[in-house]
């Protein structure tokens, strides 16, 4: 945007002077060459009138002029009315003369806009007809070339930034005219008199254009669609020396109407500065120039003014959208991952539950098999056990029958015998019940139980075997034993196993003292059970392997008994170990944690 015209320095010095030449910034709205052609004579005129200083012309575009004023790199400004008002308000420049136009109206106004349409475009008759049409203008900042018409259009209810909008062609002004001619725009806004000038120069055919809504202004020689505003002023900067300014004013005002410089500029020389208040009023209405912030900003204005912020915002927004999309994507992916992980976890948990269930089932199965095998080992003993009451029953019954046959029956004796029969039947039933309890396949039921009761139950199952082996089972059970939280049957199974092992050990050894002692005692929050035999004992290196599965010292043993026993005891938080019996043989000890609850 910011382009600087080729800087053309033209220095005229009447004499060698110490002071630097006066620098005059000139708006080169139609290019540097045109500006030099139009204004170079005026600057030269000034140089002649400023002996010892001279003058330099600095052709600049609108932005260049503003920059030069801001940086104070020039002493005077020759620019259009619109920019003057802006710079006056913002940088404190002051008009010292106004260009006197040949075609100025009676009030001195010389700047207006002509809104051109193609001569053959019959749809456009009034300014209001431009609503929604495509317009063309040189630049949004051009005063006669746009802003004047803009104010007029707003009064007619047409917003040049709405509808078709306005095409800003940029300098030179000819482009606007060409855009209308070529149909790129429906109407073109140009400085008044441009059309006439171009026609006079033969560059266009005036007949192919028409000025929309022409006004008649007394004394003004060009077709115009708007009211007129003062022509270009010659201004000094705020810190331009007063004497220099005065000298320049005098020089300008004394310029003859027919001076070559005036002719080159197409003017009638310079006049005292006119009132630029109407321009201020126009700018206030439009909210431009120094009144930029007062105008209710249109979106396009805002875009124009803050496009870089908007661009940053847009980039930010884009970044945000990308970020949100990315985050959303990540969240979705992570959610999917979590869901998958969750599903895996649930599957794993289900599998673990299944495995636990399976393991529990197998444990139950194994316990069951272990009990069955113990029972199998004792089958003949149990048969004997059961045969005892059955034999007694038979004996009683036959004895009764014989007495009745022989007529020697004593009724009192018979009653006694039949009572004995039912007692023995009861005894048999209890044995069967005990066996059934023992071999029943069931889940372990942990509840407070009395270890002494388990010892007695186990002894009852193997009593006949002990008798058969000629072994005395001696009980040394402590009174008031605290209960342990355990499965009664499993503890019975352990005790039974230990007793049977002890009996087997005794059978091998045939000791002098064939007793197996079952001891219980409590202490230190635990209940301890000991099964002491007088068998051959166990070599230390075998003792370590005693609890290994399939380790056995018996010819017919499976070697699972003690291994299962230890599993059971440890499952109850207890311990099972072997010790030497001081009296010879082995002592198996079971220690179980006492339960707080009372035995049920």
């Amino acid at each position, binding site marked *: 945007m910011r382009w600087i015209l080729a800087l053309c320095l033209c220095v005229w010095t009447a004499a060698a002077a110490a002071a630097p030449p006066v620098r005059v910034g000139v708006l080169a709205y139609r290019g540097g060459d045109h500006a030099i052609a139009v204004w170079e004579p005026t600057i030269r005129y000034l140089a002649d009138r400023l002996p010892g200083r001279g003058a330099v012309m600095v052709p600049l575009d609108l932005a260049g002029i503003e920059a030069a004023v801001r940086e104070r790199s020039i002493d005077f400004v020759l620019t259009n009315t619109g920019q003057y008002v802006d710079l006056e308000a913002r940088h404190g420049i002051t008009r010292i003369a106004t260009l006197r136009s040949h075609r100025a109206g009676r009030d001195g106004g010389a700047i207006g806009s002509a809104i051109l349409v193609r001569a053959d475009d019959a749809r456009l008759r009034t300014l209001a007809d431009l609503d929604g049409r495509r317009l063309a203008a040189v630049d949004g900042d051009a005063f006669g070339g746009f802003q004047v018409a803009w104010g007029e259009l707003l009064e007619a209810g047409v917003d040049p930034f709405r509808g078709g909008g306005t095409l800003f062609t940029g300098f030179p002004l000819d482009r606007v005219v060409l855009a209308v001619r070529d149909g790129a725009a429906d109407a073109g806004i140009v400085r008044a008199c441009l059309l006439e000038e171009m026609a006079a120069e033969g560059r266009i055919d005036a007949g192919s254009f028409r000025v929309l809504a022409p006004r008649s202004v007394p004394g003004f020689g060009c077709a115009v669609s708007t009211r007129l505003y003062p022509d270009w002023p010659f201004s000094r900067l705020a810190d331009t020396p007063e004497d220099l300014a005065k000298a320049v004013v005098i020089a300008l005002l004394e310029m003859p109407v027919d001076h070559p410089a005036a002719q080159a500029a197409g003017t009638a020389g310079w006049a005292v500065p006119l009132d630029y208040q109407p321009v201020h009023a126009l700018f206030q209405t439009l909210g431009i120039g120094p009144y930029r912030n007062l105008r209710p900003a249109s979106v396009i204005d805002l875009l124009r003014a803050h496009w870089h912020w908007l661009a940053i915002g847009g980039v930010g927004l884009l970044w945000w959208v990308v970020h949100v999309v990315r985050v959303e994507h990540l969240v979705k992916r992570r959610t999917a991952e979590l869901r998958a992980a969750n599903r895996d976890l649930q599957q794993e948990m289900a599998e673990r539950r299944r495995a636990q269930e399976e393991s529990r089932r197998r444990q139950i199965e194994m316990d069951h098999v272990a009990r069955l095998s113990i029972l199998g080992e004792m089958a003949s003993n149990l048969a004997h056990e059961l045969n005892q009451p059955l034999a*007694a029953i*038979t004996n009683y019954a*036959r004895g009764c029958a014989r007495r009745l046959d022989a007529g020697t029956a004593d009724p009192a004796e018979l009653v006694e015998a039949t009572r004995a029969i039912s007692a023995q039947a009861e005894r048999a039933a209890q044995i069967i019940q005990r066996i059934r309890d023992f071999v029943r396949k069931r889940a372990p039921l942990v509840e407070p139980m009395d270890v002494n009761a388990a010892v007695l139950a186990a002894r009852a199952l193997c009593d006949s075997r002990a*008798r058969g082996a*000629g072994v005395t089972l001696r009980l040394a059970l402590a009174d008031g034993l605290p209960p342990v939280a355990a499965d009664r049957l499993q503890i019975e199974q352990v005790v039974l196993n230990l007793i049977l092992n002890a009996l087997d050990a005794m059978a091998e050894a045939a000791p002098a003292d064939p007793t197996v002692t079952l001891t219980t005692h409590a202490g230190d929050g635990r209940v301890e059970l000991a099964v002491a035999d007088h068998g051959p004992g166990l070599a230390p290196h075998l003792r370590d392997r005693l609890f290994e599965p399939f380790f056995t010292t018996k010819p017919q043993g499976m070697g699972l008994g003690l291994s299962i026993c230890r599993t059971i005891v440890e499952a109850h938080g207890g311990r099972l170990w072997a010790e030497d019996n001081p009296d010879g043989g082995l002592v198996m000890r079971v220690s179980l944690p006492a339960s707080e609850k009372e035995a049920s």
Partner: protein
Amino acid sequence: MTDLPSPTVYVVDDDEAVRTSLAWLIGSVGLAVRAFGSADAFLAAWTEERPGCLVLDVRMPGMSGLELQEALARRGSSLPVIIVTGHADVPMAVRALKAGAIDFIEKPFNDQLLLDRIQDAVKRSQAAFAGQARRARVQSLLARLTPRERQVAELVAAGKPNKVIAFELDLSMKTVEVHRHNAMDKLEVASVADLTRLFMEAGPA
């Protein structure tokens, strides 16, 4: 013979129900029964003064049935032993029979079989008692004879005529006849046949 003491059947079994019921069954045929819970209790109470038999459960805590048999044998008992067991354990049966058991009955048993065996055993015991009693009487009669009378009586019982006896003992016929007469008086026999039977009962001298 009628002065023999009445027989008694002894039952030794550690299972009280079995023991009592056996006593009840055996009592139904009119036999006297004494039951003991252990071998030791039986040995403490028993004296061989009457005929009978022992019904013994072979598997017991403490002294086993076999050990009891051995103890009885050491005492020179002739008490017949019937082993009752729940287990047909062949080695044990062999041991029991070798130790002098007359019978081996497996539980559950037929009551008639058991009672028959018991009756047999009791009769055997009674016979043994009777024989022993006769031997004792013969010995007491023989004890009355002088040595010369006994020499003559033995030769008479062997069926030798007085003339041969007189020649063998270098005695006169008259002296032989006197000794023969005195001996038959002392031995309370009326004929040579009776005398011969008496010496047979006395068994080998």
